[in-house]
């Protein structure tokens, strides 16, 4: 075990201790952990809200949420999950913590800007909560569609301001990461020696930087229309409501790639480590990450087939949507090919990664159903869409977040968790997930619309079943986090490389020292060369 002091014992700046040493820190690892705890809080809150929605829907008619309250709860669930959890989850937590380490440097390029991003993130969260307790939380859904959002009496302006501030935090993080990767990479590390997680962060950062201003400006336009009555989107004043949808989805579709790309990066790290085998198609995965970033920016209007936009646009955007499936498929096939004939060691991170591949594939393939304009018309705004979205974003990004937590937890905190509980929790979450969302596909195909607190009698059994799935899932999620968080009470027991990883974070202590490395890290010619690891473990089998 290394004797060097970890970043927990060496605050930066050095003269402050206790809570203050965290609140004014410029250490990327501490900032990453501050994001982690904030994000866990928001995530669990939004999980509970989602559970309330599902509980209301278990039985026909009004049970304990009124129609208005139901609208507010699903809006709050969506806003928190999207803006406060999924978008920042992987880049802000694991990107902040591991990006500098993976490229062999001591911090991000703009450490103070990094701290500012965290404060903006927290400010955005506080503003969202304030909007809840002022004039009632908006009932527009997280999409803030006009003309409803410019005419409803609820507090849309404050909620929109929250999204604006959160967008700023996201942009600054993206800018910081791009600059760090360009300017602070270890001198021995060329572009094609970077780990795949870092590559996906790079692609994501560009999307964050380029697409986020569009939504920020659009949300300001909504506020301007609400307060000043300028006819931007209101047709009675010469505005164009479909223009809002274009502007909204110009950001929000690329945003789903902001959410999923780092998740794909996490899976690309985990699969080769536990297959003890070089990743299949490194360059193809790198290229597909960049291709997703570009192609994902071309398909936004596939959310708008029924909005009344031109048929030409429907045709073009439907065609482009099918193109974006190709790079995603390249990744899935590469992961599966990596597992093929690998020396597989099953661990909780690998188990969660395999669940990711399955759930994300279902999400991706049902996306093609929605991307086809003809089929889309029938299932648009039904529970089919809700289920597809949760399969990609929760089954995808959410599970990648869980996998990343289990993979890097020993590195971040120096403590290993209980494997058995981790497996039980993962099985509960995955089983509950399938039990919860598959009935929603069927309900959607049967014609049950989304965003209503009540439904016709024929939909009752499906909703009743989905409620049980949700219960299993929520229990599993809380068990998973309890298992991880309870390790903080015990002594540090994780070695510097408990998994047999070979990217640079496994060359330093667990948890890492303040400046990440005490000796110059060794950059491999090829970042996924497991020859040394295989030799090491073939001599001495590794226990937990």
């Amino acid at each position, binding site marked *: 075990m290394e004797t060097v002091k970890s970043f927990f014992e060496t605050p930066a700046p050095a003269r402050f201790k206790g809570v203050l040493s965290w609140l004014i820190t410029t250490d990327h690892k501490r900032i990453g952990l501050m994001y982690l705890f904030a994000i866990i809080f928001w995530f669990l809150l939004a999980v509970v809200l989602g559970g309330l929605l599902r509980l209301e829907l278990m039985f026909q008619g009004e049970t304990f949420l009124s129609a208005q309250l139901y609208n507010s709860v699903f809006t709050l669930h969506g806003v928190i999950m999207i803006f406060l959890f999924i978008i920042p989850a992987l880049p802000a937590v694991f990107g902040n913590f591991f990006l500098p380490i993976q490229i062999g440097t001591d911090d991000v390029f703009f450490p103070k800007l990094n701290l500012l991003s965290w404060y903006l993130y927290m400010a955005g969260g506080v503003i969202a909560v304030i909007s809840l307790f002022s004039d009632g939380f908006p009932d527009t859904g997280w999409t803030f569609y006009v003309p409803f959002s410019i005419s409803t009496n609820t507090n849309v302006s404050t909620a929109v301001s929250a999204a604006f501030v959160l967008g700023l935090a996201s942009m600054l993080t993206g800018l910081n990461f*791009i600059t760090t990767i*360009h*300017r602070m*990479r270890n001198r021995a590390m060329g572009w094609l020696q970077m780990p795949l997680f870092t590559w996906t962060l790079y692609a994501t950062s*560009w999307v964050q930087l*380029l*697409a986020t201003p*569009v939504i920020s400006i659009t949300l300001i336009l909504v506020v301007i229309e609400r307060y000043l009555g300028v006819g931007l989107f209101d047709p009675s004043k010469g505005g164009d409501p*479909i*223009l809002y949808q*274009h502007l909204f989805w*110009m950001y929000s579709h690329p945003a789903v790639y902001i959410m999923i790309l780092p998740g794909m990066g996490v899976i690309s790290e985990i699969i080769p480590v536990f297959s003890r085998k070089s990743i299949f198609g490194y360059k193809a995965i790198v290229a597909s990450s960049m291709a997703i970033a570009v192609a994902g*920016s*071309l398909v936004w*209007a596939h959310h708008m087939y029924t909005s009344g*936009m*031109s*048929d*030409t*646009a429907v045709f*073009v*955007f439907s065609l482009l949507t099918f193109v974006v499936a190709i790079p995603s498929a390249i990744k899935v096939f590469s992961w599966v090919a990596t597992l093929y004939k690998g020396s597989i060691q099953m661990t909780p991170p690998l188990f969660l990664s395999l669940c990711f591949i399955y759930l994300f594939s279902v999400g991706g393939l049902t996306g093609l159903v929605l991307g086809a304009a003809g089929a889309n018309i029938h299932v648009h705004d039904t529970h089919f869409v809700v289920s597809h979205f949760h399969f990609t974003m929760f089954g995808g990004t959410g599970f990648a977040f869980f996998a990343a937590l289990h993979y890097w937890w020993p590195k971040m905190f120096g403590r290993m968790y209980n494997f058995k509980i981790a497996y039980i929790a993962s099985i509960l979450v995955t089983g509950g997930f399938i039990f919860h969302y598959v009935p929603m596909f069927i309900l959607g195909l049967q014609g049950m619309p989304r965003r209503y607190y009540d439904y016709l009698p024929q939909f009752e059994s499906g909703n009743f079943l989905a409620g049980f799935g949700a219960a299993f899932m929520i229990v599993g999620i809380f068990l998973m986090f309890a298992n991880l968080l309870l390790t903080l009470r015990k002594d540090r027991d994780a070695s510097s490389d408990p998994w047999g990883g070979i990217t640079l974070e496994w060359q330093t202590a667990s948890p890492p020292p303040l400046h990440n490395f005490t000796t110059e890290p060794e950059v491999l010619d090829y970042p996924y060369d497991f020859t040394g690891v295989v030799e090491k473990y073939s001599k001495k089998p590794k226990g937990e």
Partner: protein
Amino acid sequence: MENQQEQHIIGYKTLLNVLLLLFVLTGITVGASYLDLGQLNVWLALFIAAIKGTLVLFFFMHMKYEGRALRWSFLGTIFFLFIMISFTFWDVAFR
């Protein structure tokens, strides 16, 4: 990694010329709005605005003197903006 620490001071004369050019282009934008070119009105206005934006970025924001990485980044943003605006016309132009 490229060295981008050099300082650049742009002379007043150049800055003034760019400013005048921006005024002229604004005048052209206003003038062009009186011509009825159908769909092309929007494209013309966007074209002139793009030139103006490029001048501001290159001279007032010193992008002309930056390294390759920043210039490519700048071109990336222009490309992105081009996609955003032009693809909207798949809808607007064919309604």
